[in-house]
């Protein structure tokens, strides 16, 4: 189990509650679950990294349990009760110096401190669709949902939100524009927040400025946008909708930079590699696809044979692990031209030295 889990570069949760690890270099997928004790209420709602070294995966299940999976040991190490079905599904999970942040649909945001049973609670309003943590300031979280505008919370001062977005101006018929935030992401180094809505808008907010309305608004397609992800280069965002259309939008003017083709069903999970121009997407069509963001071509396609089966793939959230993708890129590079290989390696290893080192270490472990 342990060896298998260390190979995996992408982790995918499924509607049946199975956690799947995918090794792109070996083109293999593994299930990390006991097939005998599967139930529908273990459906994976949300996933997050449990620690900054990316050795633990946190999984929020439908039945209100948060499970911790160790990627080094390849087993579930912990499982705790963080809610129940009546409060709705998990909409976000995050870790802040050894305490766990959970948020459910009904709007109850809880901070579970390690060891002690006392929890801090914030009511962020009903109909929450997503809670996200600011990766640079880990005590900042943003929430938003249906008729629940984007709010930014400081967990050290939980009584009031630091920023609440204001709805955009009425439309040309002087009707109120409905609010439906579906996904949120923090733009690094600029303090801005980008959201996508169920009414196919993409909006950029700037909490540091006095303006509470979006500083940029753009639309993509005609179907609800489900999820978004920020690529390594800052000026763009990747959004996906319920029809399986993926597009890279430019955040400077809000124009479509390019579309990514090949998806057959609605997108549930999108994740960009933190340093490389690689995008992993998964959704209801039961495929995990890895695209290059440079030329938008398909690099890998994994159809979890069992997973489909098992999982309807529907409720899938996934996370791309930085490291191994790199590892696997190396494999591909070595297949191609040697010259390019060297050049590429030099460029890609510098920005992500830490992860590169980890790859090497991991490989050693695997060999042993």
């Amino acid at each position, binding site marked *: 189990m342990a060896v298998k889990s260390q190979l995996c570069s992408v982790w995918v949760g499924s509607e049946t509650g199975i956690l799947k690890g995918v090794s792109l270099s070996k083109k293999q997928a593994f299930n990390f679950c006991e097939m005998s004790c599967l139930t529908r209420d273990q459906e994976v709602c949300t996933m997050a990294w449990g620690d900054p070294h990316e050795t633990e995966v946190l999984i929020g299940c439908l039945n209100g349990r948060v499970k911790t999976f160790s990627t080094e040991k390849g087993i579930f190490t912990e499982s705790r009760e963080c809610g129940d079905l009546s409060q709705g599904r998990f909409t976000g999970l995050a870790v802040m110096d050894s305490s766990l942040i959970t948020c459910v649909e009904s709007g109850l945001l809880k901070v579970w401190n390690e060891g002690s049973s006392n929890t801090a609670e914030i009511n962020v309003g009903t109909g929450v669709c997503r809670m996200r943590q600011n990766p640079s300031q880990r005590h900042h979280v943003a929430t938003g949902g249906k008729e629940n505008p984007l709010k930014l919370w400081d967990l050290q001062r939980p009584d009031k939100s630091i920023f609440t977005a204001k709805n955009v101006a009425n439309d040309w018929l002087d009707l109120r524009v409905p609010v439906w935030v579906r996904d949120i992401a923090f733009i690094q180094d600029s303090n801005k927040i980008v959201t996508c809505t169920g009414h196919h808008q993409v909006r950029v907010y700037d909490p540091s400025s006095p303006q509470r309305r979006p500083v940029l608004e753009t639309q993509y397609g005609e179907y609800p946008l489900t999820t978004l992800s920020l690529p390594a280069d800052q000026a763009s965002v990747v959004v996906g909708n319920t029809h399986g259309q993926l597009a890279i939008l430019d955040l400077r003017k809000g124009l479509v930079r390019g579309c990514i083709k090949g998806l057959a069903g609605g997108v549930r999970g999108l994740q960009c590699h933190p340093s490389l121009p690689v995008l992993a997407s998964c959704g209801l069509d039961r495929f995990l696809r890895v695209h290059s963001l440079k030329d938008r071509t398909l690099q890998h396609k994994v159809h979890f044979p069992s997973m489909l*089966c098992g999982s309807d793939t529907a409720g899938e959230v996934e996370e791309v692990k930085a490291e191994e993708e790199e590892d696997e890129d190396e494999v591909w590079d070595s297949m191609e031209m040697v010259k390019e290989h060297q050049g590429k390696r030099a460029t890609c290893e510098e920005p992500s030295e830490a992860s590169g080192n980890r790859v090497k270490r991991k490989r050693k472990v695997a060999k042993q």
Partner: protein
Amino acid sequence: MDFIGVPVSEDTTNTKNKVKKTMKRQKPFQEPVDNGSVEESESAGSSFPPTFSLSTIKNKQRRHLMFMKLKQEKRKQKLELRKKRKKERDALGDKAPPKDVPKTIENQRVYDETTVDPEDEEVAFDEGTDEFSAYFNKLTNPKVLITTSDRPRGRTVRFCEQLATVIPNAHVYYRRGLALKRIIPQCVSRNFTYLMVINEDRKVPNGMVLCHLPDGPTAHFKVSSVRLRKEMKRRGKDPTEHHPEVILNNFSTRLGHSIGRMFAALFPHDPHFVGRQVATFHNQRDFIFFRFHRYIFKNEKRVGIQELGPRFTLKLRSLQKGTFDSKFGEYEWVHKVRIKTYLGLTGLRTVEFKAE
């Protein structure tokens, strides 16, 4: 007038004579050419540049003649080759190499990676707990509501009526301009398990929305080649009230499984074998053909079938999670026009061919 007419006729006779003469004159020149055309064609074939093709011959008759000759020759060669091969085969007897498998569309297809392995635990679990599991665990009995788009005309009405005779426990209702989203909760409260909507275009049915209740999924099909009972030749007597048997062919991929289960759940669990009726959903290259038959066993080996109608063809357009919601629903699969045929979207059984 006569006076004028005579010289004209004379003129024509003259010209005719001239033509005849010229023809006569030409014939002796042409005849040897015709006789020796085989030799000529061979010699021509050698003397012409290699790019010579029959289409460069400008005389139509001649071109035709040459073409027929060429065809005959080819046929002869083919026959000879075949004879030769057969002789070799007979001579070798048992040691003869196996015959080449002919190329067909079916065997040129790329294997679809989503094809379901029947022993897969995960599929089994998924299917055991999906929306249709209540039907397959024999907890519910199907009850189908059939309706149409607003103000149905002509064929669509008859098509609905005939569908209702095929599917047991089906009720046809007039749409009355109601929105589907308002119909669905009422259907759920009255224990319907399916909502079937036939859409039409210019009085001809062209679409079908099949919505499983109470919580999805919803499939949207294109309907084509509808043939109603009246238009059928050698049709049997009208179907009886017995529950038919259901045959599902080729629903082998993961998507195919879901669609197949959807069709299976339309019909009651235990078919009445006394009725000897069978409904067939045959999937071939992503088109689903529906036929309704009555069978009879003539003896142990032979079976006679008689079509009862109606027949139609379906093609999946989209499969949506949850009940009908075309605006905010999440789609499990959407038909998209492919740019490259081998690009590989998952179909019921995908129509992908090896790029040659």
